[in-house]
């Protein structure tokens, strides 16, 4: 005979099952209305001497990403662990290169959920070497085939936005 604890677990599973059916019927229609786009802004902060890198990921896309990674149910963008996992995902998927090809490693400052987006914050000491820098992004390419990752470079005049996709994962830019 199942204990109370076991019964409650069975009930939860039943509820999840029902939700899955609903998602299977409805989700493709609703997903089709929104392009899967992330926006990364790179802004130099003269006070701190850092490039401030802010990645904005739509909440629903972040939710989907965590689901694909098969994390626990309670690990959501609203939870600290969920945001931490998204930050690690960004660390792995968005990579920065110096003119000599060496990998630059931004430091993750944190992440927060605000409005529709999860914001992942990184800082990178403003590079001192002049030349052509590069950024590669494969963020969520395995989740949404049509994923676009926009990298907006606030220090460029006029402001430049690199539009990276599965077809073109790498872009280059020259800081002033």
């Amino acid at each position, binding site marked *: 005979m199942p*204990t109370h*604890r076991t019964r409650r677990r069975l009930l939860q599973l039943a509820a999840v099952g029902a939700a899955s059916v609903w998602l299977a019927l409805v989700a493709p229609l609703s997903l089709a209305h929104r392009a899967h786009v992330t926006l990364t802004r790179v*802004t130099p*902060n003269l*006070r*701190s001497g850092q490039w*401030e890198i*802010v990645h904005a990921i739509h909440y629903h896309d972040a939710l989907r990403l965590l689901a694909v990674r098969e994390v626990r149910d309670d690990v959501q963008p609203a939870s*600290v*662990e969920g*945001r*931490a*996992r998204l*930050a*690690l995902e960004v660390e792995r998927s968005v990579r920065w290169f110096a003119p000599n090809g060496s990998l630059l490693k931004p430091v*993750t*400052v*944190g*992440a*927060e959920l605000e409005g529709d987006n999860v*914001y992942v*914050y990184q*800082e990178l000491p403003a590079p001192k070497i002049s030349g052509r820098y590069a950024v590669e992004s494969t963020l969520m390419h395995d989740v949404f085939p049509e994923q676009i990752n926009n990298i907006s470079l606030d220090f460029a005049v006029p402001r430049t936005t690199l539009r990276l996709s599965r077809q073109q994962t790498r872009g280059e830019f020259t800081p002033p």
Partner: protein
Amino acid sequence: MKHTPLALAGLLAATLLPVVASAAVKTTPGQADQRFAQLEQLLPTPNTVRTASGAPGAQYWQQRADYRIKVTLDETRHRLKARQSITYMNRSPDTLSYIWLQLDQNIFNDNSISRRSEVAANSGTRRDSIGAGDSFSFAALRRHHAFEDREYGYEIGEVRDAGGRVLRTTLNDTMLRIDLPQPLRPGTSIEINFDWEANIVDEAPIGARGGYEHFADSNTYQYFLAQWFPRLVAYTDYTGWQHKQFLGRGEFTLEFGDYDIELTVPADHIVASTGVLQNPDAVLTATQRARLKKAETAKSPVFIVTPQEALENEKAGTNQMRTWRFKAENVRDFAWASSRKYIWDAMGYRQDDAKRPFVMAMSFYPNEGEPIWSKYSTHAVVHTMEVYSRFSFPYPYPVAISVNSWERGGMEYPMITFNGYRPTRDEKSGKLTYSRNTKYGLIGVIIHEIGHIYFPMVVNSDERQWTWMDEGLNTFLEYIAELEWEDNFPTFGDKTNVLDFITGYMQSQDQVPIMTNSDTIVQFGPNAYSKPAAALAVLRETVMGRELFDHAFREYANRWKFKRPTPADFFRTMEDASGVDLDWFWRGWFYGTDYVDVSVGDIRAYQISSQDPEKEFPLRRAEFAADWPESYSQRQNRAEGRQTRVDRYPELKDFYNENDPFVVNNKDRNQYKEFRDKLEPWERTALDRAIKAGEHVHFVDFYNLGGLVTPLPLTLTFADGTTEEYQVPAEVWRYNAEKVTKLFIRKQRLVSVELDRNHLIADADQSNNITPRRIEQSRIELFKGRDSGRNQMLDALAELKGEPKSGAKADDKAIPLQPASK
């Protein structure tokens, strides 16, 4: 910013009312008038014991208890066995039919209120369990086993009076009532005698202020015995017998008295203790005595027992016992430490005091504490006495001791303190290393605990009731001492300024007023330590100024040294000795949970108008032109060479084409004359003088967003780049504590007003402290400013990456739990 002539009537009105309240005076609790209400209802009525000035009254009294104890340390069984005698003197005006003993070791008994009232979240240990919901840590499991293995608490024999009569006793948790055969009348005394035994607590798993520590690598021990013997409960004018049971957090207050203590310990032990050693010839070698003599005049610490000697000594072991005898005068407690592991260093401290010109500063520590203990400990002891004595009174005892008794944290007793922080051994290289946190933590904790010898070991406030009275005052002086140790001493985490550190706590939701009883305080550290320290820092540097504050604080310390102050005595003395009404300050900082956040609003700038059209109209023309520049289209037309109709047909011009609205006519001149004629002579004089001086009149708004009323230290910046520091007293808020408008009349035009440039008032949001506003912080800067969220995130990242979180201990790991089987 508008620069507009101001109507004279308005100016005069504004001059007469420098602070313009924008709303009616509030009468609801917590509003303006309440924030400045006097504290009469909250403070006890003054009497002949405690006066309205905050000083002890003509009929001040306190009890006294003298102790004689012979105690033996059984190292094999980790147990104390003692014969104890107490002489209790009733100096109160009351007749007592019973007296109470305080049995702090009973807190570790399985049936104590403290243990039975533990909640799952912390299992009663100072090392919190981990995780939310049903979780159980290895630390909690070890603690459970420690309690299961041994029984703790006193085993007390019959209590007898001096004549040998057995006295009736009643045990109530951590207190023992002794019924007296005859009531103890005022001015009389009674002697009681009893034997007792108690197991010494294994401190590491259980968490205690005293106990023994086992060093697994060398299988050696040290014993630090605190709150180890039955002590007379304090009987006071403000609460009668102190009837708050010992629950673990609220420390204690006791009676002053003389102690004669014989400590019988293994013969190879070195003993550190409250008091003066009475038999050095019997327990110290000739070399050790000679080194002690040398240390009296040394400029740096001298080893009495060297590290090498201590290392050799701890290897040997002995079955022989030796008795160390100590006497201590006028102390409110007695503590000691004993081990064959101790390195011992000492350095004399000389002070300008006829009664106590010389103090011996000493440190006792195992080799595990090296190399930082021999470098810093005794210097920190001496530094503390140098600084604290300036703010209170000369150090009153013959010795000041720091013992390395545990891994971190500290605890204070008269003349002796137990302090933590040790280097750690790197697992790979085997080298001893210590972090920045360990170094400054060690110096800080020693300053703090030695500081406690002043507060509350001499200024005998009651920590069981009001933790802040010693922890808060002491943290404040610790902060001052640390600032004098070296520049940028990291007193509060990564921050040097307590006023920058405290704002996060003061904005938090789950806080209680400082004036909360010790055992019910939430967020204990910031509430009882940092917030009172911040409050006193604001008082000293901003509200009162150093001269008034230091005098009043010293007065408090000297009035109440070797006496028993209450909060009202502190509040009243600080006001009485400084001549500053601080009731609003105590009410806001100590009885409330508001925080400081003032926003600087608009600056509205004016100049006084002479009303003379010959002077004013040209000014108005220029200002009009500046405010309303020629239209872009008109300029473009001219640039294109397009002529207006009037240009092409000059005959269309008339009077108005030659005279703009700012041309002075006779009507204007007549009006001006009429205005001057109607002025009283003194009004004309004032007006002419102001105009000649070219004074600028500014109205500046301030909004109190945090609720706590505060002085406003302002930096005024003028058009020519010069600045002026100007402090608005907190009383500016007395009519309206939410918004005030302040008037500034200056020769120069004001271009910027900045509040709290020097971080003097614990303002929680610096971004709204300047008008015009500075560039906004970036999203990342704002996020980093929210420390709690950021730290949680960094901890989570570290966990996911498999990096150890800072400060995490191995035994904090969670034990996997599964549902219990039926």
